[in-house]
């Protein structure tokens, strides 16, 4: 599936929820299910510090694709991280650079990407892009 198709798939999944509480319960579920990072990966180098919550992001290039892993100390943020990873992990750098991350907005969860929330998510999205830029140069 393309990045675009995965984003659409997520939007479809969420469309069955009638109210916000179901939506957030699902995010909490996704957050709880996300495989935790190895404690050694939760280091300062991988830390994206927000003032409300913290996010860790690990990127590894394998066979020309970037594998991302991540986690957050807040469960709802972790749920959003899980969704992001589903969209971006295992992609070629160029694929990431050619795509636009719009599903969070489509889900009505845009406020989590607001700079004022300072939950680390916006910085994570930017960081993913930076990794893509950096690895595209290595690959290129």
């Amino acid at each position, binding site marked *: 599936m393309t990045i675009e198709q995965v984003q659409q798939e997520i939007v479809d999944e969420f469309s069955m929820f009638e109210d916000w509480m179901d939506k957030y319960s699902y995010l909490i579920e996704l957050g709880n299910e996300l495989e935790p990072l190895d404690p050694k990966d939760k280091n300062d180098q991988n830390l994206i510090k927000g003032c*409300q919550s913290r996010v860790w992001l690990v990127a590894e290039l394998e066979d020309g694709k970037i594998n991302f892993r991540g986690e957050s100390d*807040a469960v*709802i943020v972790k749920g959003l991280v899980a969704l992001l990873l589903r969209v971006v992990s295992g992609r070629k750098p160029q694929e990431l650079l050619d795509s636009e991350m719009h599903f969070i907005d489509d889900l009505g969860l845009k406020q989590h990407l607001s700079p004022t929330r300072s939950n680390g998510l916006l910085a994570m999205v930017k960081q993913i892009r930076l990794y893509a830029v950096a690895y595209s140069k290595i690959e290129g």
Partner: protein
Amino acid sequence: MSYDIDKIRSYFPILKQEVYNKPLIYFDSAASSQKPIQVLMKEEELHNEYYGNIHRGAHFMADRATEAYEEVRERVRTFINADSRNEIIFTKGTTESINLVAASYGEQFLNEGDEIIVSEMEHHSNIVPWQLVARRKGVRIVKWPFNDDGTLSLDKLRNLLSTKTKMVAVAHVSNVLGTINPVKEIIEIAHQRNVPVLVDGAQAAPHLAIDVQELDADFYAFSAHKMYGPNGVGVLYGKEKWLEKMPPYQGGGEMISEVSFEETTFNELPYKFEAGTPNINGVIAFGAALELIDSIGLSHVAAWEHELLDYATSKLKEIEGLKIYGEAPGKSGVISFNIEGVHSYDMAMLLDKMGIALRSGHLCADTVMAHYDIQGCVRISFGMYNTKEEVDTFVNALNKVRMMF
């Protein structure tokens, strides 16, 4: 006199708003309070009827605006019982007030090897300005730790004070813990060693009657926007004997007497510290906020908020796994807490969806978070317009959130 909560709420149009189809419950007044119609109308009145740049123009509008601006200075003077209007400096907020003192007092009186005592419960605004001047001047910041219940020990202060101490910086009321610090005693102890004290009054001014002469404070800083006034206006009270000796903080219009390229002489107090065109509309509208507080009576507001605090505290304590940070006797109207197994961001997020505005995160007080070894917490804080019914709704919502994890 009974507290007419309906009437008070009617002054704040925003309280009728709905958030995500739920009535707004605003429990974040310690971050910034809402603005009453009296303040909004004052600003409109100024712009419609008598606006001009103050202290400069020889025309009617400038005169009227100057008069209105200076009337507020006088009102502030009375509000905190300062001795002279020369001791009331308008700034853009508590943060700027403290930066002014740190930079200007620091420039004049701090030397290498000196020490500044700063309490561990301070807001970043009462830590970082001191660090900046400390770095410039080779001065050491000495931490005055607080006890786990959120109180400061005066004995510890006595032990920290030395001949090197040149300033004590302390909050009147902690923005996280709600502790009302015994500033009168603190100042007395510091003064015995001839050390001046700066009091961060940002969280005190909306709730407590302040008498800077009785406290004998050397500097006292607070913000209008936490007192139902507009943003971008703050006050620095400073004893004239200090302000006279301190160099200007910023240069520009208003603060000068005569300027040539060889030499500039500075204006007298308080103008020496008010460089440039000040926040004329903000200051004048702040006057309306003070008028409102005076008309209701700060003691009545305080009593009402105290009732809410007691009520909310007892309700919250019934919730399993809930821990409150700061339980000093007679504390002010903020409650910071965490619930075991629920991250503060998640909690704030879900409560927001239920129409409840509160603060989450480190609350601009990393040192307090470090004291309790936590990354953050949530805080509710009360203003004159909050009600017990809102507390009930909030507690129900909180229980609902707890069930989601």
